[in-house]
């Protein structure tokens, strides 16, 4: 893959937190515009850190991150972030939470409300627009957070285990909603998860991370659109096994 048409380019990035231990070492990763990439790995291997570097929330200690060929110095308006917890503001009704990315920058117009309602409809919680976050279930909160990330139509989304806390059925529904929304808008996505099946189901490409390095990167050869049947496909299972094997291997061997 050429690095010119990449939306995200991560070039030789290393990162150490203030205590000095290197959490990421020499990561190279490129995500073409419109692609859906997944990053799997055990907890503590550095996934969130890499996501924050891509977002511009952290600055690499070595190497550089580029968005559409420009160096990233701080958070970019082109990138939406979905956190591990829904991170909704408890004092605002759902609709105002969804409109936050807009209301921070300008007056909210009737059109914006339309957009927000449309998104809430797409994630299946249109009837809950007036409720407060504390009145929603975990799955409904995740849906609201997804709608908020999409309301300003960012060309790219960074997602940090957004569905990890949900039950299996709700998670599958949200995965399908997500795929529908991002293919509609041609959004570039980097999706972090610790669930191999989730990564394979969602991604065009899956990277396995182990102790701060990319241990394996594989393209997922499954036709789109994917649906519940894809999950029980032989090819799907084979892909999962392949990645599972890479995760089990010690890093020295994988390199």
């Amino acid at each position, binding site marked *: 893959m050429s690095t010119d048409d990449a939306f995200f380019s991560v070039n030789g990035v290393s990162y150490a937190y203030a205590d000095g231990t290197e959490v990421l070492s020499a990561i190279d990763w490129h995500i073409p515009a419109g692609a859906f990439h997944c990053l799997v790995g055990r907890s503590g291997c550095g996934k969130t850190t890499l996501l*924050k570097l891509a*977002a511009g*929330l952290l600055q690499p200690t070595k190497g550089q991150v580029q968005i559409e060929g420009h160096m990233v110095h*701080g*958070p970019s*308006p082109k*990138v*939406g*972030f979905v*956190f*591990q*917890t829904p*991170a909704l*503001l*408890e*004092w*605002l*009704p759902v609709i105002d939470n969804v409109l*936050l*990315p807009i209301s*921070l*920058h300008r007056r909210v117009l009737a059109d914006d409300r339309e957009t927000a309602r449309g998104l809430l409809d797409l994630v299946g919680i249109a009837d809950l627009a007036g*409720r*407060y*976050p*504390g*009145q929603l279930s975990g799955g409904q909160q995740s849906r609201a957070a997804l709608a908020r990330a999409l309301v300003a139509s960012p060309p790219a989304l960074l997602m940090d285990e957004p569905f990890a806390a949900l039950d299996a059925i709700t998670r599958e529904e949200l995965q399908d909603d997500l795929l529908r929304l991002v293919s509609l808008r041609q959004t570039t996505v980097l999706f972090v998860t610790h669930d191999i099946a989730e990564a394979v189901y969602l991604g065009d490409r899956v990277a396995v991370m182990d102790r701060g390095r990319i241990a394996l990167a594989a393209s997922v050869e499954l036709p789109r659109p994917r649906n519940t049947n894809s999950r029980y496909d032989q090819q799907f299972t084979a892909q999962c096994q392949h990645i599972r094997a890479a995760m089990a291997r010690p890093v020295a061997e994988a390199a």
Partner: protein
Amino acid sequence: MRRHIPSVILLLVLLVGWEAIVRLAGVSSLVVPAPSAVFVVLWDGLVTGFLWQHIWITGAETLLGFALGCVIGFICGVVLGEIEPLRRLLWPYVLATQVVPKLALGPIFIIWFGFGMTSTVVITALICFFPLLENTMTGLQAATPEKRDLFRMLGARRWQTLLRLKIPSGLPVIMAGVRVAIVLALVGAVVGEFIGSSKGLGASIIAAQGMMDSTLMFALFIVITAMGLLFYQITLVFERWLLRGWLKGKVS
């Protein structure tokens, strides 16, 4: 309402018992007045308007001191909470002034502001200042790191993060400080009047003590207690309204 019935019955039983003991044992009204006598004095005071002028003054001192102390405490809390170097510089002094018994400053305030309402308001404000300062500083740290990152991702400016994330996140903690402050404010105003005023409920207690009028003192206690409960309830209603978003979430 129903769950209060046992409490009301207990109150009536206690009052009747008190009345009976005072009458049967012939306790001097100088030591413990009978509830009926206290009620008569209270009623007279309210009807003649004698009590109202004092209620009005103490109420005004309490609310003025409370408002001043809360506003200044909140603003200082925001400034110290937001400006790290300033916080490091001033924190030892904040702690030191916090342990100074504020009422002990009464005499010096009388020299500065004169005998009367101003001294009492200043003492009351000073007493309300600290719970607001401390709770505001604590409350501003309440927003989770993820929400801070969210605001950074959304390109929020510093004042937007303050107004739209940190202050609302800290509101439950800040309001807890307000609740503490309203109770302290009334105590501050009454005790402030002991030393620095000739009008108000606190000053009336001192005057009643001078006349050895225990019955009037008891009537004044009742008025002060009623005022305290009223102020506290009003604060509570305001808090519920302000935090309706949070509270709605808690209803299961």
